């Protein structure tokens, strides 16, 4: 120990960098455990995993070993005191771990230590060198880096000389530490102690307590790191699950708020709603809450969002707690949203189950697993309120917070719907999650003139300019439309009142249009009348002109004739011989006059 401290002093420059000099850790590979333990179990040291019967101690220890081999290439040794290797193998085979293969590859060594007190007679001094020899042999055989002793305390029932036993245990832990073996020891929980025989006395680097509780007929496993010397760790009780893929400590949550944020916007699927949210919709990776009373259109809104996302080719996960997959699909068809095509194309993963089906942790786990496998860009949970029926409000809250953290850390947009029961204050959620969400849209019904109309408004939307309007929410065959309601004389009119008002306005407009038309027609008529008049005057003038011209011509002609006659007269008067002759034509001329 003093040697180690000296080494630390030499290595650590005094500029704060020692904070980075963390205890070396051996990752467990167990989902979530590495996160809350900040990297795994203390490397080269011993960890006690304690808890009551059936709480998953052995499972945790086994998974530590097997994942150590599979994921970190660290061979392991299992010394089992309670179960035979065959039983162990079977137990973990159900989790998909092929122990036999690892044993054959000499990556894992299983040894069953059988302690049967009735077979043993103690006569004089002894020690447990046999255990050390077996352990050494096992470690040497596979080159083990990890050791698991399950359940070491079985030794206490096999040997009556506790003094020897305790001395040997102390020696064992020292022995393990000297060989730099990362060890997990399982132990039954004692009455007032962490372990029945006080093993924590000898091992104090890391103690993990497992617990198995049943409340409201739903069992929950919990894990708590009671102690972890020399490192920071999550100190809470974390729910965990054992399922077909082993242990998952839940939720995988970051201890700090350090999400990457995106400036990218995603459409809500409803153009009018996009308009209300600064024209572009939600931020990618933000959290959205839609709350409203029953039948206010929450699911339709969620479906619209999903529909738009799928149209962009993005993957969505839709988790429903109220309606079956097919039912939602059918209902959405009535508003022109075809969810089935997205399912068929693999863009939408739609899962539905009853909230009372599991405890809250299993819900979370199932969602996590879906997220891990689907890798969606958007997740819809519809509705979150129903989870309360299956669990406690506080737990639901913490689950949702963790889910939100989880989603945000992955830049996945989360879209929650929340059912407000009638009479409850609309601007609040059962679970109290509203303050955590980035965008909160409220759907509500407005009763007026004997009808109920859906209204929508944006209660908050962080980081964007958003409309303060209450819009009417109308579902049409082509999807959702948000209509600006009639606002006039201090009154907001929706539904048929709005329609009536609009009709009135339309009628008035029509009337005005007709008036204008009429006047224009009159003007036109006047113009054409004038034109006609001008035309007839012109014609009249033309006729008169012609007449006058004719008479002028006549006059001119007769003038010419007179001239001719005068000339003739002159001629006649001047010539004697031709007097008689000239008189005749003159007379004739006068006759003709």
């Amino acid at each position, binding site marked *: 120990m003093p040697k180690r401290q000296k080494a630390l002093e030499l290595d650590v420059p005094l500029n704060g960098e020692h904070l980075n000099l963390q205890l070396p850790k051996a990752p467990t590979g167990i989902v979530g455990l590495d996160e809350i333990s900040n990297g795994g179990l203390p490397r080269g040291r011993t960890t006690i995993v304690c808890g009551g019967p059936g709480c998953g101690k052995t499972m945790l220890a086994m998974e530590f070993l097997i994942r150590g081999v599979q994921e970190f290439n660290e061979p392991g040794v299992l010394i089992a005191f309670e179960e035979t290797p065959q039983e162990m193998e079977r137990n973990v085979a159900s989790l998909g771990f092929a122990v036999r293969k690892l044993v054959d590859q000499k990556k894992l060594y299983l*040894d069953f*230590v*059988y*302690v049967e*007190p*009735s*077979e*043993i*007679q*103690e*006569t*004089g*001094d*002894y*020690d*447990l*060198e*046999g*255990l050390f*020899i*077996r352990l*050494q*042999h096992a470690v040497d055989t596979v080159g083990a880096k990890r050791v698991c002793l399950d359940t070491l305390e079985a*030794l206490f029932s*096999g*040997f009556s000389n506790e003094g020897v036993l305790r001395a040997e245990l102390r020696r064992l832990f020292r022995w393990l530490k000297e060989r730099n073996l990362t060890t997990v020891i399982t132990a039954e929980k004692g009455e007032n102690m962490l372990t029945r025989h006080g093993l924590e006395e000898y091992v104090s680097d890391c103690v993990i307590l497992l617990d198995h509780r049943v409340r409201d007929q739903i069992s929950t496993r919990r894990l708590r790191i009671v102690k972890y010397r020399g490192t920071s760790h999550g100190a809470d009780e974390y729910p965990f699950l054992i399922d077909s893929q082993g242990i998952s400590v839940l939720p995988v949550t970051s201890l700090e708020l350090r999400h990457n944020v995106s400036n990218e916007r995603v459409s809500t699927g409803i153009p009018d709603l996009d308009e209300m949210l600064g024209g572009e919709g939600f931020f990618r990776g933000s959290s959205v809450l839609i709350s409203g009373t029953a039948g206010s259109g929450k699911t339709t809104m969620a479906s619209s969002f999903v529909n738009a996302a799928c149209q962009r080719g993005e993957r969505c996960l839709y988790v429903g707690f109220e309606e079956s997959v097919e039912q939602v699909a059918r209902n959405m068809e009535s508003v022109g949203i075809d969810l089935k095509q997205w399912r068929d194309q693999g863009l939408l993963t739609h899962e539905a189950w009853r909230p009372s089906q599991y405890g809250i942790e299993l819900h979370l786990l199932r969602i996590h697993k879906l997220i891990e496998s689907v890798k969606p860009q958007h997740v819809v949970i519809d509705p979150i309120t129903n989870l309360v029926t299956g669990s406690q409000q506080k737990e639901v809250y913490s689950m949702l917070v963790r889910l939100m953290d989880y989603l945000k850390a992955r830049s996945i947009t989360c879209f929650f719907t929340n059912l407000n029961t009638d009479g409850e204050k609309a601007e609040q959620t059962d679970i109290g999650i509203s303050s955590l969400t980035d965008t909160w849209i409220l759907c509500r019904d407005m009763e007026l003139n004997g009808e109920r109309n859906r209204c929508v408004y944006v209660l908050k939307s962080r980081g964007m300019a958003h409309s303060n309007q209450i819009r009417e929410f109308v579902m049409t065959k082509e999807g959702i439309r948000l209509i600006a309601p009639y606002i006039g004389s201090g009154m907001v009119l929706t539904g048929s009142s709005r329609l009536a008002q609009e009709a009135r306005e339309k009628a008035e407009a029509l009337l005005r249009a007709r008036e204008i038309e009429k006047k224009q027609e009159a003007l036109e008529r006047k113009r054409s009348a004038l034109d006609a008049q001008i035309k007839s005057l012109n014609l009249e003038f033309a006729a008169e002109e012609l007449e006058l011209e004719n008479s002028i011509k006549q006059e001119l002609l007769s003038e010419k004739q007179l001239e001719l006659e005068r000339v003739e007269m002159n001629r006649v008067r001047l010539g004697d011989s031709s007097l008689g002759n000239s008189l005749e034509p003159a007379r004739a001329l006068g006759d003709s006059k």
Partner: protein
Amino acid sequence: MKKRAKSNGKVVADNDNFMQLRLYVAGQTPRSLAALSNLKRICAEHLEGKYKLEVIDLAKNPQLAQGDQILAIPTLVRNLPVPIRKIIGDLSNVDRVLVGLDLRGTEQDGAKASQRPSERRLGAKA
């Protein structure tokens, strides 16, 4: 019948009273040596010609510890006759060794003896 290990006793064909013993030790520790000498003495006194003894040094053959489920050192294992008996310690308490090996004629119930050693000891003295 195994003949590979070193035998300190004589092999006798009479199977009814024949006793097969293995003493597990780890190196030449004082405790191991004490156990071996104690055992030899007991055998000479009580089992003359009716036993076979193997001494197995786990320091040399660690893989042999698994077969007989050895934890404590030294451990004396009686493989025959059945049931298997294990006597741990340096065998300094002769009475209890004899009880463990079912060599006390009056005390057939070895299992009981191991559970209540103090009572047995009193009985042995009487």
